[in-house]
């Protein structure tokens, strides 16, 4: 089996230091939405400068390089045990090269392992076997500030008047955006999952964040709600960094999954503007990156 450690290291470097083009384009558009001379516009201009500098110098966009979350789609015949070992080696090397901050802390002792390894959940690796010969690895680096403002609601929620329908979903998502204020490093991107159990729902909300910003939701009802939620979140006026302003949310992604009759969860994963996600494709003995 091919050793992909070096290619995975490059995937990590790219994710940590080079913001994806769709996110950068959305940030550049949002600069124009803010008043000249405002703190909001100043923050966005600083963000753009930082994105350019990080790319040029191969330094982390944000010092919180987050939880490395890998999704590996592998063809038949690859060993997931060996792939995990290669991912872990690449993560250790990336930490030594200061692409990643040592971020894995023992929850009981408070000790930082120093190399971004830990138990079986750090780094987080999901495996799925796929047809064909192409191996794909998606990587997301999700920082703690935005992870902390994620939320899960169990509907109905009488306080918000939110029932078990899309109208209820809308209300709780707006409530989550309000509660987050600027703390998740606005402007953010919302990953929303409707249904599932508490665990699967949160996972699904993160998985929606692998979609491209311009990608349309195939479900027209959800597509309409995504657009509405982005617009209404921006009406809240929280703005970049919570300074006040027109840009609070860049995009919303919604998915649904089957649920139990008794349960109706809505899970919101908030992604900061430093939306670090990259893909590596391994085909015909060559790696390519997007």
């Amino acid at each position, binding site marked *: 089996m091919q050793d992909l450690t070096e290619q995975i290291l490059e995937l990590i470097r790219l994710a940590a230091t080079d913001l994806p083009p769709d996110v950068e384009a959305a940030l550049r558009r949002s600069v124009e939405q803010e008043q000249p001379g405002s703190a909001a516009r100043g923050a966005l201009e600083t963000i753009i400068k930082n994105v350019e500098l990080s790319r040029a110098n191969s330094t982390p966009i944000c010092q919180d390089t987050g939880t490395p979350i890998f999704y590996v789609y592998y063809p038949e015949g690859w060993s997931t045990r060996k792939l995990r070992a290669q991912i872990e080696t690449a993560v250790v090397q990336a930490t030594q090269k*200061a692409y990643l901050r040592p*971020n894995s*802390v023992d929850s009981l002792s408070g000790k930082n392992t120093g190399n971004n390894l830990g138990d079986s959940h750090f780094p987080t690796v999901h495996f799925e076997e796929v047809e064909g010969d192409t191996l794909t690895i998606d990587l997301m680096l999700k920082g703690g500030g935005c992870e902390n403002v994620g939320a899960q609601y169990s509907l109905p929620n009488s306080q918000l008047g939110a029932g078990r329908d899309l*109208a209820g979903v809308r209300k709780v998502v707006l409530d989550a955006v*309000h509660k987050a204020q600027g703390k998740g490093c606005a402007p953010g991107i919302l990953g929303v999952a409707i249904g599932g159990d508490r665990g699967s729902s949160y996972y699904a909300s993160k998985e929606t964040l692998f979609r491209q910003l311009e990608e349309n939701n195939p479900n027209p009802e959800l597509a309409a709600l995504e657009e509405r939620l982005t617009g209404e979140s921006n009406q809240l006026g929280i703005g970049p*960094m919570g300074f*006040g302003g027109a840009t609070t949310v860049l995009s919303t992604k919604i998915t649904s999954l089957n649920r139990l009759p008794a349960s109706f969860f809505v899970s919101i994963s908030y992604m900061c503007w430093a939306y670090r996600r990259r893909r590596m494709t391994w085909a015909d003995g060559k790696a390519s990156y997007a």
Partner: protein
Amino acid sequence: MHQVNIPIQNDVIRSLKVGDPVALSGVMLTGRDSVHKWMVETFIKNTRQPQGDDLEVYQAIKPLLDGGVIYHCGPVVAGLDTRQFRFVAAGPTTSIREEPYQGEVMKHFNVRGVIGKGGMGPKTLAACQEVPGAYLHAVGGAASLIAQTVTRVLGVYKLDFGVPEAMWVIEVKDFPVVVTMDAHGSSQHAVIEQQSKSVLEELLAQSY
């Protein structure tokens, strides 16, 4: 742009108002969750006995914090193996986690500036009026850019807390921040929270 030197004089901190952009220069200390808990438990509430190098570190940081600045930051640091430390990425972390501790830490050490992101609550705002001090907002995620304003890493305390949680002593030049909580009781965060709350209520009242 206000040019402010650390240690910060009383009249300087009082002259800063919410919305003012500031370029900070001088020596500051990073400190976040572990540091604030350690300071309050060991030296302010005295619920924990000093251990190891605690007293020595306390004596060393006291003069640095007198009129000084605490930066809520867990940096990416190069040169860990050679101890030739260099900040590679150093944006602010979310400050509200220090709300239970910050006011007491400011008062105990006479800290005049707290840098972070996301703002803080009423206890810290009250301390800003009392000390006097200000909350200075850095741009979250702008880590490479901010690291360039760190001209030297002068040392580190409590590295056993881990790289992100240690107290790094850094010299900065023109470190960019915006005042979002001032010594006169104003908080931009409280204003935005309220304004967005009333918009939220209008939106929630609309039919689907």
